[in-house]
């Protein structure tokens, strides 16, 4: 069998042990007994992990062995934290447990992962429908702005509700737009890198090649201005600038992109009261403790109280932080698992991001490279925006922590994201001599993990 897959299997086993262990400890700490659902939780996770693993063995045997276990670990621990916050909230008046929903989303997320691996047999297929992706992305982005469908929650209009289902379409739009940008830039990179027009001190390429890019940029501004979703807007913009830079190798695009972003930010600051409030809160959360600074201050209290070793599962009070299970789940981990826990978590993210960049480096074609970079950048930026926001590194914008936060749309999108990366890595990894042909199991063959 494939040694990459064996590595993956052992890492998945580790993720399973850590997740189930945490689940049992939370139950012990809350009720002094092993929670009744432990076996079910363990069996479900094991089944999901094993299922995804077997599908990779079958359909993408050369895929990266780190991404799936990384996602599984973060997802498993996130689920435990959501469950743990349910324990704390159970005494509150309008208690609605989140863990069952998140467990269901986990199952669906793994299903999405498997579906992407099975359906997308070669990532180059996606290249063919590039304008459909653009259209899909833009439509998804605009949905929340529609009158009946859209919902404004906590000052940002990024929710859509259809019947009993609600979700954040921006999560899916993110992937669609990355696919479009990668496809478009892979084809036009030479044209974009060649300057034909001179405008003042700047050399500009043909305007018509720029149009689709401007559309993408306009879409991100739309998100910012009409949906007031600062986090997603920043995310789109970062991915956009990164991809254009990687495709063209021209730093002037980065400079121009940053200039555009800064002017957009200044404009938003002057136009929107809630942006001003966020910046003021960021600069001095203690001053606004009784109002808008409460959440940030409570998050910092949680981190500080956690200290180096943390209070231990279910020993802290992360439930004091508003939105502890979504935006502020990082602070909840900081309180209970301490600096050691959150550092380990950030290192898992960093490892996944670096694996993603390695996949981009090894991808056989430009579209694959750009797609991988785009997906990884959006993943890394999302981690940066929310962790940086919670730790007061940058102004806080509400966005989910990938795989960890409570939220279905985010979980599904991120599973699709790593499935695409797995797919690209499977093609970018030269198969060992006899890998695709049946070989005796005991050849002792070793493949270097790349």
């Amino acid at each position, binding site marked *: 069998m494939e040694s990459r897959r064996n590595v993956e299997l052992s890492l998945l086993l580790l993720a399973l042990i850590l997740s189930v262990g945490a689940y049992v400890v939370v139950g012990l700490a809350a009720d002094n007994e092993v929670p009744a659902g432990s076996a079910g939780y363990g069996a479900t996770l094991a089944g999901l992990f094993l299922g995804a693993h077997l599908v990779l063995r079958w359909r993408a045997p050369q895929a990266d062995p780190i991404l799936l276990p990384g996602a599984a670990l973060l997802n498993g621990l996130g689920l435990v934290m959501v469950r743990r916050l349910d324990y704390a909230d159970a005494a509150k008046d309008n208690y609605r447990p989140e863990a069952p929903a998140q467990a269901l989303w986990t199952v669906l997320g793994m299903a999405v992962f498997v579906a992407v691996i099975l359906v997308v047999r070669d990532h180059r297929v996606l290249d063919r429908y590039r304008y459909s992706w653009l259209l899909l992305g833009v439509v998804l982005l605009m949905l929340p702005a529609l009158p009946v469908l859209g919902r404004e929650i906590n000052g940002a209009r990024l929710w859509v509700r259809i019947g009993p289902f609600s979700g954040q379409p921006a999560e899916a739009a993110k992937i669609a737009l990355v696919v479009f940008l990668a496809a478009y830039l892979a084809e036009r990179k030479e044209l974009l890198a060649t300057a034909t027009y001179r405008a003042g001190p700047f050399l500009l390429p043909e305007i018509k090649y720029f149009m689709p890019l401007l559309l993408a940029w306009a879409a991100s501004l739309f998100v910012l201005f009409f949906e007031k979703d600062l986090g997603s807007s920043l995310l789109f913009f970062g991915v956009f600038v990164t991809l254009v830079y990687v495709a063209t190798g021209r730093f002037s695009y980065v400079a121009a992109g940053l200039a555009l972003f800064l002017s957009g930010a200044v404009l938003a600051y002057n136009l929107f009261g809630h942006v001003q409030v966020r910046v003021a809160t960021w600069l001095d959360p203690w001053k606004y403790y009784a109002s808008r600074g409460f959440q940030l*201050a409570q998050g910092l209290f949680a981190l500080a109280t956690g200290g180096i070793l943390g209070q231990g599962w279910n020993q802290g009070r992360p439930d004091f932080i508003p939105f502890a299970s979504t935006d502020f789940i990082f602070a909840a981990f900081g309180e209970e698992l301490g600096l050691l826990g959150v550092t380990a978590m950030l290192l898992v993210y960093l490892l996944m991001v670096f694996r993603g960049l390695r996949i981009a480096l090894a991808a056989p074609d430009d579209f694959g490279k750009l797609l991988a970079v785009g997906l990884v950048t959006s993943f890394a930026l999302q981690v940066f925006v929310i962790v940086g926001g919670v730790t007061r590194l940058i102004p806080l914008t509400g966005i989910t922590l990938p795989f960890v936060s409570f939220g279905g749309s985010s979980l599904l999108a991120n599973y699709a994201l790593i499935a695409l990366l797995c797919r690209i890595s499977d093609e970018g990894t030269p198969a060992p001599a006899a890998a695709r042909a049946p070989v005796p199991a005991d050849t002792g063959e070793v493949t270097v993990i790349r």
Partner: protein
Amino acid sequence: MNRQIRRVAVVVLVAFMALLAAPLYWQVLAAPRLTNDSRNTRVLIKEYSIERGAIVLADQTPVATSVRSKQRGDPLEFVRHYPEGERYGMVTGFYSLVFGRTLAEQEFNSFLLGRAPEQFGQNVTDLLTARETPGGTLVLTLDRATQEAAEQALRNRKGAVVALDPRTGAVLAMTTYPRYDPNQLSSHNPEAIRRNWDRLVKDEDGPLLNRAAGALYPPGSTFKVITAAAALEDGISVNQPLPSPTVLDVPQTSADIHNFGGSSCGGGTLTMPEALEISCNTTFAGLGLKLGDKKLAAEAEKFGFNRPSPYQLPAATSVIPKNQDVPATAQSAIGQRDVRVSPLQMASVAATIANGGRRMAPFVAQQVVSDKGKVVKRFEGEDLGQAIPEQVAGDLRDMMLQVVERGTGTFAQIPGLQVAGKTGTAQHAQGRPPHAWFIGFTSAGDKSIAVAVVVENGGDAGSEATGGHVAAPIAKAVMQAYLGGGG
């Protein structure tokens, strides 16, 4: 394209370095500041989730307990309750959400929370068995009957009563009036706590003040015991006739020393026991002048003056100036001018004399017991050594017995028992009645007790005997209660 991807990797690495540094800052560098921020209620809630140990009397009567909060949705699990209300507040202190902890609740906090190093072994076993560790029970030295008797005898007169076991330093009773009910500050309702606090703080009678250990008074004639001790140590014998004029002409001042009500002290001379019996001011002021300010202060310091109190709980430091001019020395010798004492200090003076001159540090907490009944920590009154020679203590005892037998302290007499004592009537402000004092001791069988009583403004400026009228009966009641009626 790979070159650009590698550059993106560098940017990612830098960004993640910043992400890794941020929690390091909040969880390590800024942690002490944020953890102790009063708005961070996490520490408080953690503390209130522990079943804080009870505080009990020597006979196991609980005076502070932790009970589960019955308030719905209360984030604080346990609420502190003081079953005896205001009776033991001057020892237990309070345990308040808003105003923190005081007295025993504060000084023995780590034991009550089960977090003291002595309780560590127990905690590790609890950790392994995943058992919630309740705090340790603090056992006080207070005697229930004596405490209640002191409270009843003092009634609603402003003042304080302290009773000690002279041989160990154990506090047998400590009460004050007015008092406060620690329950009013220990609820989980911050507004109610603030309201009660405001009322207590604005009360001119100062119910929050622990007069027994934390307030300072002029000792008046009770200080003559110390002056006598200094004189005896200086070689003046009990038989030596001492000048006892009606008016003592003090050099360097026109403020001469008179006796109470301008009375003469009988004849021209008195022996020291005779002078103490009737509390003759001129005799002791004269002794003070003869000894000088240094010797007088040095003698008082042997009893603990001018040094932080060795008591387990916060207490005021009793003072006597080391350098005084002649008139001040004369007045200090009779417990006036700048001499200031706490009732606890004067009880300790009486106890030291009762104990043959050996001074024991007063203590009110005797041990901490784990919830399994194991003694985790034992406290004892420190032996502070021989304050005065045994011979001098014996002479003082004989003189004080005489005071109660036929002097100003007859109201402290208990039939069948030998009671020693000294009265005091301390002037503290022009035109206001003086404070009435009594210090004394007695024993029966294997039990002995030393008592100090002060009743603010309780005396009559015209008569030295009023300290005896007002304060001595209180001491008597306390002694009787402890010694079981005493006949």
